[in-house]
């Protein structure tokens, strides 16, 4: 395993602002880094879900069914994201048995940048959910609240899809490079 490439160090620093234990996919820490990222996504999704759930409960009790309906849809999407992240592939410790090849600098860059972008995206989702709850409690119009909730749902969906590309990158690591015939 190679060391962390220099040109992705800013991304690593950015992630470390949120996850202090993150050190990139250095040797022997690939699974730890992966686990940290996934836990952070789940945690952020939980925060988002809490905000949206609060809106849902309040809207249902107030009889604002359209808002509650939008909130329920967002919650369902968040649950799907959590499930995707929770059951995503990690990679194996034993490359010999798994057939994995060593990660190259390009792979590390992709993974680190990907982690940074996913964290950024899920953080945005939390912020939007927070804004939606704040707007709901501060008398924002139902249309605006629904708009924010749907933005949050859209961001979650994007995050879910973006996280799915992680499997593609890790899948690339599972493919051993064919030896060139001389």
């Amino acid at each position, binding site marked *: 395993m190679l060391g962390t490439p220099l040109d992705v160090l800013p991304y690593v620093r950015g992630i470390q602002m949120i996850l202090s234990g993150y050190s990139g996919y250095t040797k022997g820490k690939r699974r730890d880094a992966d686990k940290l990222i996934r836990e952070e996504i789940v*945690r952020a999704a939980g925060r988002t879900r809490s905000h949206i759930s609060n809106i*849902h409960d309040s809207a*249902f*009790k107030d009889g604002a069914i359209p808002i509650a309906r939008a909130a329920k849809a967002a919650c369902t999407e968040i649950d799907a994201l959590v499930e995707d992240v*929770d059951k995503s592939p990690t990679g194996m410790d034993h490359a010999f048995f798994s057939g994995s090849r060593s990660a190259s600098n390009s792979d590390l860059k992709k993974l680190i940048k990907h982690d940074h972008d996913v964290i950024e995206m899920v953080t945005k989702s939390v912020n939007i959910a927070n804004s939606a709850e704040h707007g709901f409690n501060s008398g924002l119009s139902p249309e605006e609240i629904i708009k924010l909730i749907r933005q949050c749902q859209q961001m979650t969906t994007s995050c879910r899809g973006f996280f799915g590309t992680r499997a593609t990158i890790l899948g690339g690591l599972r493919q051993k490079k064919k030896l060139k015939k001389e």
Partner: protein
Amino acid sequence: MSNVYRWRSNPTILARLVNANDIQTWKSKQVILKPNEACAFIIDGRIGDIVSEKIVRNVGGGLGRYLGDMLGATATDRRMLFAMTGPADISIPFESNLPNGSKVQGFANLRVQIRDDDIPKLLNMFANSAPLLDRERLIKVLQHELNNRVIAPALSQCQSGEDLRKPDFQEQFEMRAEVEMRSTLSTLGFTFLKAFVATNSTDSEKIAQLRSELSAATQTEGAHAEALMERIAIRESATLRRIECEVNVAKAQAAGKVSVEMESELKELRKQEAQWEAELKRDQGRSEMKMKEASHKTEQAMALFEQVQAKKRARINQQHDHQNQRMDKQNDIQMKMMEMAAQNGALTPDVMQEFLKQQTAQKAVDGSGGDMPSSMGQQTNSPKVCPGCGNTVQAEWNACPNCGNSL
């Protein structure tokens, strides 16, 4: 003997609290945590790590741990709280009434999940009960609250059994379940995901179903009857058609026989007709030949007759010429004698009278000589009858022109 400790022996088990001190085996045990399993360690009353997707070695048993316990080198109380982290469906039966009094039975399905961070909350569940949580126990825990806080209020908004089947009811039920049950589930360590209700048929629906079934049975019977009638009609038409075909065939066969007979008879008739025609031609030929022969004889007779007549006319003309010449000569002589008499003065009335007498007598002689044949001719030309054919012939004819018989 495997050293793997299995915390879950039944698929309905959702969580289990295990006292590691109860695992007493000679060989140390390890547990393999799959992606949908997690374990929270509670060491000496404190909540420790929550692990997943990992092989946790030396969870209990073994000689080393036994010795450590004996020497007091290990924790006094070690408990492991295992849980399934995948979504779990629980079906809670209910029985309630609609506002119109209809009885409603069914199941409320809740989809819940234990997330890794919430596993320690399961201790609330195990505080005053057995350290095993399965679906049945969770149903018992949630049933009363769900019936009173979710199902009964949701059903109270339904006016009839039909409202139970509407999507609005399901949506309202899910939202209400999430609102009302979230806090309880969260306290127990569960995350609420989805909910729906499945109701059995109500009495009114059963009546409607019975009506529908009876109607369907009636329609089915009607359809069968129609099909049977149609089949009978088809068979009838087929039978009639077959009979008609057979009759036609029989008719055709009979007509064929008749036609054959007719044809044979016709052939006979034609044969006889041809025979008759041949005989007729033969007779006509014969008669024609006879006619030709007869006409030939007649022509010959007519030709002979014409020759005789021509000779006769020539002879009469010759006689007339001779007579005229003689009369002319006599007239000349008489003229000359008159002239001589006149010249001699001997032309007296007596001479003239005598002359006229002689002239008259001469004319009478000439005339009688000329008229005699005609008078005689009239007598000889009187019609006669041919003894051969019976036709009228002239008296002077030597042969009959019709039959050629000699007269």
